[in-house]
């Protein structure tokens, strides 16, 4: 039985839902009643993020003179609260000499981009463009 629940009057405003969806992977879907998908999305994004950290990946910040670093920084910040917590405790500095460094970056960037797609999905559900 597919998940389907209308967005009722008791739910939070859409911009708030989108911010919450960005901060915690899957939270937006959870608040919209899509519990199965919320759980799957949370697990996928968190596992990808933790793998990236474990594999010595870098939570990339913008570097002057390196335009691509700005795009990478957007993807990194897309991880939401995971990004801020990891930076706060000194994780995600990146170990360039590690054999898994590039794979670590790949996992961190894909986790962030997947989470940003979740924000857009919450928007589509909230506006009624997507019914499920």
């Amino acid at each position: 039985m597919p998940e389907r629940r209308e967005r009722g009057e008791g739910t939070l405003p859409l911009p708030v839902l989108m911010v919450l969806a960005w901060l915690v992977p899957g939270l937006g879907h959870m608040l919209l009643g899509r519990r199965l998908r919320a759980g799957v999305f949370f697990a996928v994004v968190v596992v990808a993020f933790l793998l990236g950290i474990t594999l010595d990946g870098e939570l990339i910040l913008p570097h002057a003179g390196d335009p691509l670093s700005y795009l990478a920084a957007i993807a990194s910040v897309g991880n939401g609260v995971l990004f801020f917590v990891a930076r706060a405790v000194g994780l995600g500095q990146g170990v360039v000499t590690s054999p898994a460094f590039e794979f670590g970056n790949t996992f961190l960037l894909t986790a962030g981009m997947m989470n940003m797609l979740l924000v857009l999905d919450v928007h589509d559900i909230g506006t009624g463009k997507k019914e499920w």
Partner: protein
Amino acid sequence: MVDHLTLMALDAFLIAVFFSFLWKQEKKERTVYFWKVFGALMLGAILLGWLMYPFPRS
């Protein structure tokens, strides 16, 4: 240290699970879509690596 092929497969797995739940609603179509995405990522990466093989590394 896990080898790169395993890491690539793990990344492809996570991405395929993500998109199958993002874009497909029914269980059967999710399963089909998962294998399509997973297969495309794995085979595409191997094919790309094979095409890059003749090029110099430095």
